């Protein structure tokens, strides 16, 4: 009823190529941004900020990065945790070794290091693909684990191998408060997600998708596989690297290599698969699913069981969490293998025809 494009005419190519071609979408996005930047910080408590919103924003960013590689270019990667780790440790080294290093520059340089690292470990993608590539990228994960555990230089010769940062500032503004951290992450996420969205809509993105859909055919029509694959690795690792820096600097404050273990790689891959392969929007859904669901379950289950008159132990909650999680993943994959983003798209499509579907 309210969501349809009748009467919205596009009279120029420019108008036809907008990210959000429907007026209602543009308004909704504007409202969403206002809510995100203004309303949420007014309402959210410290806990909501630090335990839910900030991890959600940072992992969304990581998921956008992984989605570019896995979803758009079809290069399955299990090394995302390693790219995050490289971003985090490189940013840390720039930050503590160079006096007066601005935080944003350190994060970006961390991203650049992750980009180079990702391109090196993306080289096998020129020869192998699919499951074989996934295993090859696993090497990146193990290499990073080894590197940051073993080479003391990267941890500024910290004897325990754990490093930490404090007194974070951006242009003189302190990033101590939860709201400031949230704004900073949201701002970075908005900018990078917008750039990523435009990238995948453009020529480069179409090359990636061509490679994903059928690399031989793509090569025949003149797409250079080497350029497409390596550029996907580069862009993806850069974004994942920046998110790794944020995860370490903003979310954890102090971290050890275990924070970027292979588990993290798997979680990122799940986010992309559940959220929706080949969709920027899907990355957000996936991150929300993975971050919020376990916390929500751990809060809701005790309330439900106490309402039913018995108490549930912490261990059972944690086991139930895993079971519900596993069940939901299986259910999602069967019902909608294209992820939450596809459900969202179907919902939108139905709304456009509502109330007279044909």
């Amino acid at each position, binding site marked *: 009823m309210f969501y349809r494009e009748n009467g919205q005419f596009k009279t120029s190519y420019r108008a036809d190529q907008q990210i959000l071609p429907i007026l209602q979408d543009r308004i909704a996005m504007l409202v969403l941004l206002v809510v995100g930047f203004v309303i949420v910080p007014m309402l959210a*408590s*410290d806990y909501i900020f630090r335990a839910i919103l900030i991890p959600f924003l940072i992992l969304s960013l990581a998921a956008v990065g992984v989605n570019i590689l896995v979803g758009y270019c079809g290069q399955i990667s299990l090394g995302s945790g390693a790219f995050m780790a490289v971003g985090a440790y490189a940013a840390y080294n720039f930050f503590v070794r160079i006096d007066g290093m601005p935080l944003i520059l350190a994060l970006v340089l961390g991203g650049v290091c992750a980009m180079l690292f990702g391109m090196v470990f993306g080289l096998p993608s020129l020869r192998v693909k699919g499951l074989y590539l996934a295993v090859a990228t696993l090497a990146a994960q193990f290499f990073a684990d080894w590197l940051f555990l073993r080479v003391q230089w990267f941890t500024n010769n910290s004897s*325990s191998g754990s490093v930490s940062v404090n007194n974070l500032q951006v242009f003189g503004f302190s990033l101590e408060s939860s709201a400031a951290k949230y704004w900073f992450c949201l701002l970075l996420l908005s900018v990078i997600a917008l750039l990523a969205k435009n990238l995948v809509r453009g020529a480069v993105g179409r090359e990636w998708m061509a490679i994903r859909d059928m690399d031989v055919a793509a090569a025949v029509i003149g797409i250079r596989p080497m350029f497409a694959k390596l550029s996907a690795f580069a862009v993806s690792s850069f974004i994942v690297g920046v998110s790794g820096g944020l995860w370490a600097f903003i979310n954890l404050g*102090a971290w050890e290599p*275990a924070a970027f273990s292979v588990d993290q790689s798997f979680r990122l891959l799940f986010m992309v698969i559940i959220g929706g392969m080949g969709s920027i929007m899907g990355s957000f859904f996936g991150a929300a699913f993975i971050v919020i669901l376990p916390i929500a379950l751990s809060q809701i289950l005790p*309330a439900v069981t*106490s309402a039913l008159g018995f108490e549930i132990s*912490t*261990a059972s909650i*944690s086991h139930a969490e895993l079971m519900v999680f596993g069940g939901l993943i299986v259910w999602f994959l069967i019902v909608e293998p294209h992820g939450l983003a596809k459900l969202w798209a179907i919902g939108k499509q139905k709304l456009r025809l509502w109330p007279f579907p044909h």
Partner: protein
Amino acid sequence: MKLHALARSAALVVVIGSSLAANSAFAQAKEQFFPLLSYRTGPYAPNGVPWANGKQDYLKMINARDGGINGVKITYEECETGYATDRGVECYERLKSKPGVALFDPQATGITFALTEKVVNDKVPLITLGYGLSVAQDGQAFKWNFPLMGSYWTGADILIQHLGKKEGGLDKLKGKKITLVYHDSPFGKEPIPLLQERARQLGFDLGLIPVTAPGVDQKAAWLQVRQNRPDYVLLWGWGVMNSTALKEAQATGYPRDKMYGVWWAGAEPDVKDVGEGAKGYSALALNTSGTQPKVIQDILKYVHDKGQGTGPKEEVGSVLYTRGVIIQALGVEAVRRAQERFGKGKVMTGEQVRWGLENLALDDKKLAALGLTGVIRPISTSCADHMGSTWARVETWDGTKWNVGADWYQADEQIIKPMVKVGADKYLADKKLTRREASDCQS
């Protein structure tokens, strides 16, 4: 339609239930809240569970026996971390804002590192009994950290002293080969600087063999041990790593009586599966085990006999269970001490509990009153020393139970103190922070 109605009413119940729970928490202000971070799942669960049970049972016992701390009821909530840093941070953020929050025991070295950066702003003390950051002993640099009763540095030093004693003098260690088999994480790496310092002084040959977390795969490490034939192996493991190491040692034929574990490698879950194969293996003992101490008897009487125990009854009094009890006992005593200054029968804030932790003075008489006679040594903290005691003993597994040796060892201050000072200074310099003023001590 029916299904929808059902879902809607279920959602309603959940919302009402959770808001009720939230309301009741806010309504009762006269309660001291103890957040209980724990892990009952994952590779470290066998060791994490008795520890968590001990922590919880002690609080239940205090409520049942004494009606709380000078009349202030204790409430608690457990939060599962799975030993993962990000989950631990989430738990911390969730529980730190509850009214009357007293202190945190993160129960993991990795989480301790992350929280160390956060407690300064939130003004909640962190107690890390026998683990955590060794340099945090320096209370003038780390205002909110309390590595009570020992750190990995004191532990490593005590082990070297014990080896020296066995050999007939520390100077006899010269030329000996001592190998550290360690969990490849901050937890396992912490003792290395001290062992290196000791190796330099005493002239023994220190070998370092890391074991990837969680420590199930140690074949390569023990091949190396077999190749080098060290005179002693120091085992710095946790959870499943310990029993695996003992099994591997058995398979490689490395004598177990030359293996010495840290106090986190000296509990029942570590050796039970190995049984006879672990015979002769020794580890540090921060505390005794068994059901004889009065505090354990009280827990059995007031909690378990009433059917309110947290875990199985047979487990009460095991090594890690007792350690959980001690951790919580010290926490409760810190609140009690704080009440002596800031008002009895009141709920203490995090800052006030910190003062209490900084002024703990538990002599033999007080320990007896707590029912901890013979379980631990007297402990007294100060503004400069957040550890309070660095004593420990060595215990040996005889195939069925741990036998605690008679000798108490104290870590060598002359070695530890300068190292703590240097480490704390480096930390402060890295963070561009300054030492606390003397006047800050009474705050």
